[in-house]
């Protein structure tokens, strides 16, 4: 075997990397096979492209009503029938974990509550479709609310040291506040807003999960790239005007706009 090939085969053929991948969570509020089929089909019809092959995580944290009838394999079939992919389940309950293992689904730790708006939206949607099963409907209203913690921790992230070339910082589920320079070749991301109280020379991406209301604020705009909810500008397009000045970047009528930070 030639030396180069031998070297290649002596090293491992795989490596693991931690990554944060956005996943859509399907929060099941109550389980009814036919209703789930119908409601899911309805949702998919509204945005077929969005749902095509979409990986889904099933959350049972808000599930109320009969749990005995819960059939994960069946739910998986229903999801597959609508062109989505159920890949895992998010739960704490031991019996659910057992079910998930039987159905061959991945098990994720329950997330911190930041899905209020989604829940509200789902509940809004429910109202028009008058459910024949009034018992279940009532159960949804009385869904047990977890006791609110005394201290509410925002999911914002504050970084006080310089962010260097090659580093990547992601503020998941909140704002990112940086109190030191962000170097060229560094990348900062946030689900919410980004504030940089120093020169911003790297790449800054706010609203990475699609929040079009997110803003980027910086003391000196020297960025390689700025992006809000997927709309971006590169440094060439940022020259002139507020280059190297304090600036705010926001989406105004769906256009990325740089304005004075006053």
């Amino acid at each position: 075997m030639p030396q180069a090939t031998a070297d290649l085969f002596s090293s491992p053929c795989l490596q693991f990397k931690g990554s944060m991948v956005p996943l859509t969570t399907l929060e099941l509020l109550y389980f009814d096979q036919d209703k789930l089929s119908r409601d899911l089909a309805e949702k998919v019809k509204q945005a077929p492209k969005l749902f095509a092959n979409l990986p889904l995580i099933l959350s049972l944290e808000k599930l109320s009503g009969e749990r005995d009838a819960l059939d994960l394999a069946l739910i998986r079939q229903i999801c597959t029938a609508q062109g989505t992919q159920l890949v895992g389940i998010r739960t704490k309950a031991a019996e659910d974990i057992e079910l998930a293992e039987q159905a061959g689904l991945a098990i994720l730790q329950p997330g911190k509550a930041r899905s209020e708006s989604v829940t509200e939206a789902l509940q809004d949607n429910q109202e028009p479709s008058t459910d024949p099963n009034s018992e279940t409907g009532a159960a949804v209203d009385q869904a047990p609310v977890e006791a609110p913690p005394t201290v509410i921790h925002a999911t914002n992230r504050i970084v006080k040291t310089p962010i260097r070339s090659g580093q990547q910082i992601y503020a998941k589920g909140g704002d990112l506040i940086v109190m030191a320079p962000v170097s060229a070749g560094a990348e900062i991301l946030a689900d919410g807003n980004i504030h940089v109280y120093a020169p911003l020379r790297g790449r800054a991406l706010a609203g990475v999960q699609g929040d079009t209301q997110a803003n980027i604020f910086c003391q000196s705009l020297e960025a390689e790239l700025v992006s809000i909810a997927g709309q971006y500008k590169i440094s060439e397009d940022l020259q002139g005007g507020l280059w190297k000045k304090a600036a705010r970047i926001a989406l105004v009528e769906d256009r990325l706009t740089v304005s004075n930070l006053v």
Partner: protein
Amino acid sequence: MSKIIVITSGKGGVGKTTTSASIASGLAKRGYKTAVIDFDVGLRNLDLIMNCERRVVYDFVNVINGEATLNQALIKDKYTDCLHILPASQTRDKDALTKEGVGKVLDELSETFDFIVCDSPAGIEHGALMSLYFADEAIVVTNPEVSSVRDSDRILGILQSKSKRAETGDEPVKEHLLLSRYNPIRVQNGEMLSVEDVKDILAVPLLGVIPESQSVLTASNQGVPVIHQEESDAGQAYSDAVARLLGEDLEHRFLEIQKKGFFHRMFGGKA
């Protein structure tokens, strides 16, 4: 307990080995027991700069593998009593450096030495990571040009994320910036970044500015660390850097264009 200082840069050819040799010699000249380790396994250079290549019997990798004791591998410096050199292996590659092995050698050196200077290889791969992993302080050698500055920025990020201090949540590695090959005339002509430009981008305290000088090349080729050439501007700049490393507050020199004859008037008497 000794202090471990890594000399690093990311980019190659900026003067890491020259700096390692001079900083280590400077510390030893002031009476501190100092060891300097060549981490550039496979591309051994420090022994040439220190003019001890003919005395290399055992090397760093031999010590890690238990094939030689530390005392067998350490080479006493020709010019300074308190300085010892641990050469790299020329026949092995950087994978021979293991975290446990390097840690053990550094622990053993810590028992006798005040300072351990680690000469990092270029790049951000295994060899460079091993050289910076145990560091208490880091001297980042940078040339006043954009690619060198970018690479230094990258290595600063690695220092603060992949070093032992970063992993254990200890006090972070203390950073120093050493700007080498600085030429005020070329800065004025816009061919080089200025000290202020580099400080602004890297946001690291400045340890010293080494002027571009013929004496550096001469010193390398003769195998005498440039800090021993007390009449040369580069040698004086390294002496100043060593003083600052030890906590002295000195004004930076050699930042402005000097008129011909200036050095003779100011410092010529010492030569």
